[in-house]
């Protein structure tokens, strides 16, 4: 393969086509930073929530989540955290999983899991907010 590649008559552009960047990397990089920036505020708020609710009863915790401002922030924290984590794990897979099928499978499974958990947590928060619980 290597010797035939050296003797190839194809132009460098023709050989590179389909092997290199699909111009998707910028979007991944940008989203990772954008979610990171949002998480600076959201995680600090969330740590404060965990500390505040550390001794709370079930009813007190429900009342806290049901406050409109907290409902919105909790949903934003969930969506942003899971998406940031999925993007980060994808980079780890791309660096360490050599087998292409396994790598793609891991990325797909992680993205699916992220979406499922975003849906589950957001719906749970909304049920609490609307008093369905």
């Amino acid at each position: 393969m290597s010797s035939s590649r050296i003797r190839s008559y194809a132009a460098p552009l023709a050989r590179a086509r389909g092997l290199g960047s699909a111009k998707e990397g910028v979007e991944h990089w940008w989203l990772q930073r954008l979610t990171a920036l949002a998480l600076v505020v959201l995680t600090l708020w969330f740590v404060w929530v965990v500390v505040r609710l550390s001794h709370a009863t079930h009813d007190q915790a429900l009342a806290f989540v049901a406050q409109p401002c907290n409902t919105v922030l909790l949903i934003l924290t969930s969506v942003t955290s899971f998406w940031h984590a999925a993007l980060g794990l994808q980079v780890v897979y791309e660096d360490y999983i050599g087998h292409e099928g396994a790598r793609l499978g891991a990325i797909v499974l992680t993205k699916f899991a992220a979406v499922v958990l975003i849906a589950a947590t957001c719906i749970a928060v909304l049920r609490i907010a609307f008093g369905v619980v």
Partner: protein
Amino acid sequence: MATENTSTPTVGTGRPLSPHLQIYRWHLSMVLSIVHRATGVALAGGLLLFSWWILALASGPEAFAHLRGFIGSPFGLFLLLGWTWSLFFHLANGIRHLIWDTGAALDLPSVKTGGVIVLVLSVLLTAVAWATVYVL
């Protein structure tokens, strides 16, 4: 020839290979770089506890009590302490990364000072958060 794998570098080609991890003496920037990744992976696991917390809260008092029992156990507290430090480290070092993305603070002295600040801050914030829980 057709089955030869060109994607992995081999010693047999006779080409010089760049030195890998075990060649270098470990220094702070290397450690913090890999720890940033490790804490990121750990925090992705921590999101499972986050999910459990919200779902248990919505499920009712029994599920919530079950979760609190787990978090209050020695193993649960150990995990929570690890996640607290991971969160503060990843947060502080993440801010350092965001600053680097603007092109600032990339010189060697700034990188070294920044690394020390991040480490101290992560331990300090973890201590403050846990102290607040026990003081409350």
